[in-house]
């Protein structure tokens, strides 16, 4: 993969208005996100010959979802896929875009998503999760609650340590006027400890918010990026791994779980180490996921994520600013697209109050899959972005 390093770049990024906004369908949010990203790049319709779109939760049997989005924008596509890795999709779309351009299938790719809670006209298919749902073990919260329980058991992690992740990301969101929780103001550890249980041992403030919204980024060659509107954000590293885990997202016997190969591949490709990162955007559907990710991607030893995250280093202004726009916990559940867009904006130095000073290198992760299928199946995706 060394020959891909720094050869492709993110040149456009956009997020729609997001939050508890119910005026658009998932298609509508996706279309608006694409327009914003393409305009941000200073490009136009005829420049876009590749399109990747994240499969929305309500897609069901609607095949060619991505191509339909393309048709609604009259894009002259020679490359298009709907991608289906849940919250790992946005990061994986950026990777796939670079690969498609490298293979000569297209020149400029838009990677987009849109999501609406309870969209009109959509019938959500409740999947046949025969080995979990009859017991009432339902939803991603349950998976993460089991992981938290095991982490507490094996490593002595405490709810207060999870709480410090929530406090830090809310702090960051309060520096981001677009964040869904901006107007709610900061939270304290006491607020976290007093928030109600959802699935014990996870409390309400351990869980991300729910969000309607859309967004997109534009990927093209580093060479072509030279002539565009913003300084390019180069793709220096990338990795993926996929694993079946029954609640054990740490190395285990094979070392394949928990995204560990995804992290290793990414850092090796970039020729960098975790300590080289100026800012990180860790997929944070739940506080415990940040703890396990920091461990599995090598920012701290396995089992030590609780104490590592406890001291405020994840805040903007701390030693390892993480989820600087507020993350899924407090910016909004942008399915991981928010993490990519924030990485781009940090490296372009567009972040005003929440700007990490002199940020040059950013690590971005995605996480998703099918937490209630058997076996529990998870996808991990990683990027290192660099300002040249």
């Amino acid at each position, binding site marked *: 993969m060394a020959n891909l390093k720094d050869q492709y770049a993110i040149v456009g990024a956009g997020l729609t208005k997001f939050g508890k906004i119910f005026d658009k369908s998932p298609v509508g949010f996706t279309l608006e996100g694409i327009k914003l990203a393409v305009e941000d790049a200073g490009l136009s319709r005829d420049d876009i010959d590749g399109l990747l779109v994240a499969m929305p939760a309500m897609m069901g049997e609607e095949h060619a979802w991505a191509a339909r989005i393309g048709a609604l924008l009259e894009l002259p596509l020679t490359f298009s896929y709907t991608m289906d890795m849940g919250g790992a999709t946005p990061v994986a779309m950026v990777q796939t875009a670079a690969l498609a351009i490298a293979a000569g299938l297209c020149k400029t790719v838009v990677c987009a998503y849109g999501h609406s809670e309870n969209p009109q006209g959509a019938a959500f298919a409740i999947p046949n999760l025969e*080995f979990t749902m*009859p*017991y*009432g073990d339902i939803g991603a*919260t349950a998976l993460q609650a089991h992981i938290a329980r*095991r982490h507490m*058991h094996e490593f002595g992690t405490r709810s207060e340590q999870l709480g410090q992740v929530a406090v830090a990301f809310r702090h960051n969101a309060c520096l981001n006027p677009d964040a869904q929780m901006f107007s709610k103001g900061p939270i304290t550890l006491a607020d976290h400890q007093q928030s109600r*249980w*959802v699935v014990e041992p996870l409390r309400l403030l351990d869980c991300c918010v729910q969000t309607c919204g859309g967004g997109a980024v534009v990927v093209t060659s580093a060479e072509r990026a030279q002539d565009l509107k913003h300084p390019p954000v180069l793709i220096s590293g990338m990795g993926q791994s996929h694993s*079946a885990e029954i609640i054990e997202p740490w190395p285990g016997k094979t070392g394949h779980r928990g995204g560990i190969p995804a992290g290793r591949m990414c850092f090796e490709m970039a020729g960098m180490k975790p300590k080289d990162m100026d800012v990180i955007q860790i997929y944070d559907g739940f506080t415990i996921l940040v703890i396990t990710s920091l461990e599995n991607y090598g920012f701290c030893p396995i089992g030590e994520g609780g104490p590592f995250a406890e001291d405020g280093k994840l805040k903007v202004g701390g030693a390892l600013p993480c989820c600087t726009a507020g993350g899924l916990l407090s910016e909004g559940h942008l399915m991981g697209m928010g993490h990519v867009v924030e990485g781009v904006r940090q490296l372009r130095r567009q972040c005003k109050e929440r700007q990490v000073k002199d940020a040059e290198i950013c690590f971005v992760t995605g996480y998703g899959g099918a937490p209630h299928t058997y076996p529990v199946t998870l996808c991990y995706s990683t990027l290192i972005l660099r300002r040249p």
Partner: protein
Amino acid sequence: MSEWEKFLPKPTEDTEPYWDYCRKQELRMQKCKGCGLVRFPPSVICPRCWSLGHEWVKLSGRGKVWSWVIFHQAFYPGYADDVPYNTAIIELEEGPRLHANVIGCRNEEIYIEMPVEVAFEKVDDEVTLPKFRPVLS
């Protein structure tokens, strides 16, 4: 509310024998004829050695609580009357882990490593769910 406004398993061609045995109050899983691995979920192929041969072996029904959580919120209406209820991951003596509920004790009494044994709960003529209860020493 009737008990089974909850989700019921809808077996596939590959998983149906598992539920058929449960209906007969037997916990059986597939044992690979190639490498001996006892696997779950049911599948046409051994994930370890890719052998297609298997037999449905009767398990001891004993295991330990691997993890447990308490739902304080119902994500679907059928579970609302049960809140707060537990779900657990049970590690069986033979190796596989599976989701279930721990019954026959209070939620506060559950702990990791708690010894449990299977207890079948008949839902209707079609479906019987394996659950687990504490082993009294």
